[in-house]
């Protein structure tokens, strides 16, 4: 039951991220919406799965996926936003 509530919350956050990605007017704003909301969203779904499933293999796999997501999502977003910003600056300078 707890796991299902967590999963529903995570799915709601992912949907909010998608709404932000569709509606925000600018690249950086869209990246902001996706990175923050969907990191928490997918981590909530994965933790919900870890709470619900019984086998230790599944639980550790889901927690590993959640940890990886928390570690890599901000780094990837930082890489992408820095590259986009620099490309924009170069384009403006030319």
């Amino acid at each position, binding site marked *: 039951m707890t796991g299902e509530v967590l*999963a529903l919350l995570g799915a709601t956050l992912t949907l909010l991220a998608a709404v932000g990605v569709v509606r925000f007017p600018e690249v950086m704003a869209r990246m902001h919406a996706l990175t923050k909301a969907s990191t928490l969203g997918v981590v909530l779904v994965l933790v919900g799965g870890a709470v619900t499933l019984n086998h230790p293999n599944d639980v550790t796999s889901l927690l590993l996926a959640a940890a990886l997501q928390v570690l890599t999502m901000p780094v990837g977003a930082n*890489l*992408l936003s820095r590259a986009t910003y620099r490309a924009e600056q170069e384009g403006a300078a030319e």
Partner: protein
Amino acid sequence: MITAAFVLLALAALGFGYRLLAGPTLTDRVLGVDGLLIVGMSAITLQAMRTGEGAFVPVAVVAALVGFVGTGVVARFIEGQGQ
């Protein structure tokens, strides 16, 4: 409750797919792919919760890793391309 979560994820996938197809810059398309990958990971987890069968759960780990590497590679590509 899991069915409701699946419906929400499907709507989110529509939004990300729109951004993937329509997004004016390459960065927007990367955002769309990233979002779809997140939806896929969530869907794998939800299916495992629904059936109680965790055979596909390691795929979520692999998707997390592949998504990060893909984002990094495209970021390098955008930086080198200058646009």
